[in-house]
């Protein structure tokens, strides 16, 4: 007799309410155990949690509180990261002089200096000075909120919206994970029981910016969107723009979930219970140290590991000439007409394509492309940086389009790989690539054509 036959036999014996009976009897036994083994000496209930929940999950205050939390989080990140960022950039800049002197001293050939210093060193140090300070602030702050128990309340608030678009309320949790890393968030969708709703969560996850894209968004927003402001107000405007971009990403998440749940992934959202755990005071020191050191470090190592080869590759492409045009320029000129249509240009398209392995390197590659030598100049301050962009015909529209493209475009290589591992389907992995790409093309296209049509620019 095989197990299959046994199963059939068991099914004939079974009744529809067998599972309910089992669960009920398990709970009855739990109840008996508790009444025998546990004494409640004071009937003190956790009123603090209840009181806080009345505020955090209130129909009136819930959303405004959520938005302002998000705003505060980004403001701290943006305002706090400015100074350490420029300090790091200066430090690496001055180190470079010594490196170059060393290479001259040992009479190294020019190309060795080019690959190692202008390519590798500049590329990776740029990533470090732009990425490290925001991450060292964002991760611990987010982790504190998380450990305190605020995230389930976010899920609770968002639940109704997700239900309305036919998705699962837990998607707001996996979405929150996406702010850290989309690749990790795709794995976290395992908490969603129904395969249909899990697929929705996977396909829409990259519409929230991961930390690889924060750098790009923050730099562009502060250079172009908040250009006319100074001091604290500048950080505030930058924060406003970033919150707006994030909100737009969330709206796209809802929209795509809604369209998919009406077409390819038809169905009604399943019910689930969401536990609202008691608020617990996090171990502040542990949390801060753990998340800023360990988590930033691991993400950064990944960035550098991918940034280093990409920087070298870009330098090589920019310095190998066929005729009098470098390989890089051929690609750029080929992509340029398409890029222009979206209010971008060939360099930007090129950077996004080369940036497939990791979003962290898109901006460094773009800068390397813009400088004729194919390597980053010493960008000591953000003003220099802006000049480079302006020299290549950038306007606020270019910056906005690039931010939107970065927000909406295809997931990075690691995320796509994880999607394939989780769905085990080439078709869905391809869709996870295709849907964002189409949206990332359409949105800037519409914006650019509208702006041009009305002659706003």
């Amino acid at each position, binding site marked *: 007799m095989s197990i299959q036959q046994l*199963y059939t*036999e068991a099914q004939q014996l079974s009744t529809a309410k067998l599972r309910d009976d089992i669960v009920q*009897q398990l*709970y009855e036994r739990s109840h008996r155990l508790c009444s*025998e083994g546990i004494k*409640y000496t004071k009937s003190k209930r956790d009123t603090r949690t209840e009181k806080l929940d009345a505020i955090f999950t209130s129909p009136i205050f819930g959303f405004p509180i959520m938005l302002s939390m998000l705003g505060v989080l980004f403001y701290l990140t943006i305002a706090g990261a400015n100074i350490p960022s420029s300090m790091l950039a200066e430090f690496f800049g001055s180190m470079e002089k010594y490196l170059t002197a060393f290479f001259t001293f040992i009479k190294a050939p020019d190309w060795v200096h080019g690959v190692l210093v202008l390519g590798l060193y500049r590329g990776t140090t740029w990533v470090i000075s732009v990425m490290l300070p925001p991450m060292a602030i964002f991760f611990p702050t987010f982790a504190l909120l998380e450990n305190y128990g605020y995230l*389930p309340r976010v899920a609770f608030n968002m639940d109704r919206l997700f239900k309305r678009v036919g998705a699962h309320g837990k998607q707001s949790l996996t979405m929150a994970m996406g702010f850290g890393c989309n690749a990790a968030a795709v794995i976290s969708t395992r908490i969603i029981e129904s395969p249909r709703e899990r697929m929705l969560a996977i396909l829409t996850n990259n519409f929230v910016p991961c930390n690889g894209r924060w750098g790009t968004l923050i730099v562009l927003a502060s250079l172009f969107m908040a250009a006319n402001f100074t001091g604290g107000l500048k950080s505030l405007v930058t924060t406003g723009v970033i919150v707006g971009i994030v909100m737009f990403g969330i709206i796209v998440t809802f929209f795509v979930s809604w369209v998919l749940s009406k077409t390819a992934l038809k169905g009604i959202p399943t019910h689930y219970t969401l536990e609202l755990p008691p608020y617990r005071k996090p171990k502040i020191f542990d949390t801060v140290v753990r998340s800023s050191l360990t988590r930033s470090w691991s993400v950064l190592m990944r960035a550098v590991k991918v940034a280093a080869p990409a920087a070298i590759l870009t330098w090589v492409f920019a310095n190998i000439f066929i005729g009098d045009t470098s390989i890089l320029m051929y690609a750029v000129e080929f992509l340029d007409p398409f890029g222009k249509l979206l209010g971008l240009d060939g360099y930007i398209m090129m950077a996004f394509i080369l940036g497939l392995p990791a979003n962290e390197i898109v901006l460094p590659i773009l800068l390397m492309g813009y400088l004729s030598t194919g390597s980053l100049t010493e960008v000591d301050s953000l003003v220099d940086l802006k000049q480079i962009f302006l020299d290549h015909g950038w306007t606020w529209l270019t910056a906005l389009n690039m931010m939107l493209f970065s927000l909406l475009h295809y997931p990075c290589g690691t995320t796509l790989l994880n999607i394939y591992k989780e769905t085990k389907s080439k078709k869905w992995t391809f869709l996870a690539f295709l849907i964002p790409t189409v949206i990332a093309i359409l949105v800037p296209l519409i914006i650019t054509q509208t702006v041009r049509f009305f002659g706003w620019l």
Partner: protein
Amino acid sequence: MGNSYRVALAGNPNTGKSTLFNALTGLRQHTGNWAGKTVSLAQGNVQYKDKMFNLIDLPGTYSLFSNSSDEEVARNYIVFEKPDVTVVVLDATSLERNFNLALQVLEMTKNVIICINLIDVAEQQGISINERILTNRLGVPVIKISARNKKGFPMLLDTIDRIVTGAIECQPVQTTYADEIEDKIKKIEPKVSELIGNQMSARWVSLRLLDGDEKLLNEINQRYGQKERAE
């Protein structure tokens, strides 16, 4: 390697499993106060006396009925990978709900420790837990700890040690269901036992077959199917 043992950590989400895991292994797995933080298996080692305990942090789940893939991951690990000891971590402040999972684990495997965490919070709330009564009713060791404050760890490690050396023998007390269900189990169980031998608890597999757990069926077919055909 003869001194290395695998210890799985199971439990509801948000009971401090990952905190316990980090504190014991000295690893820095990220923890969070929400359901679904741990979705894949994290591993780390603890040295105790002359032994090495290899800790496996299973995904936190409310049940083990294979409703979702994280429940399946946890369930499959306990049933098919057969850890030497399974530690079920419970939240002392909501035991009534948490016991449900513990009772399910007791049906699946023999060497179980019930580890009641957040005992400091429970004491503040005036909850006093008599672990001896619970040990008696469940047939496996019940231990109170506070993972955040690293309290109760020596007791926990010592109990794991004594289970793997055989100094303590766990005799999990099975949940008795209504007569109607028990009769059905009696009909199926001998046949299951004949088929799978002592690879798994025949009672538990019978229950799952009655419950119509197709995912488990496929898993058994995949894992033991080839061998059957070869015989």
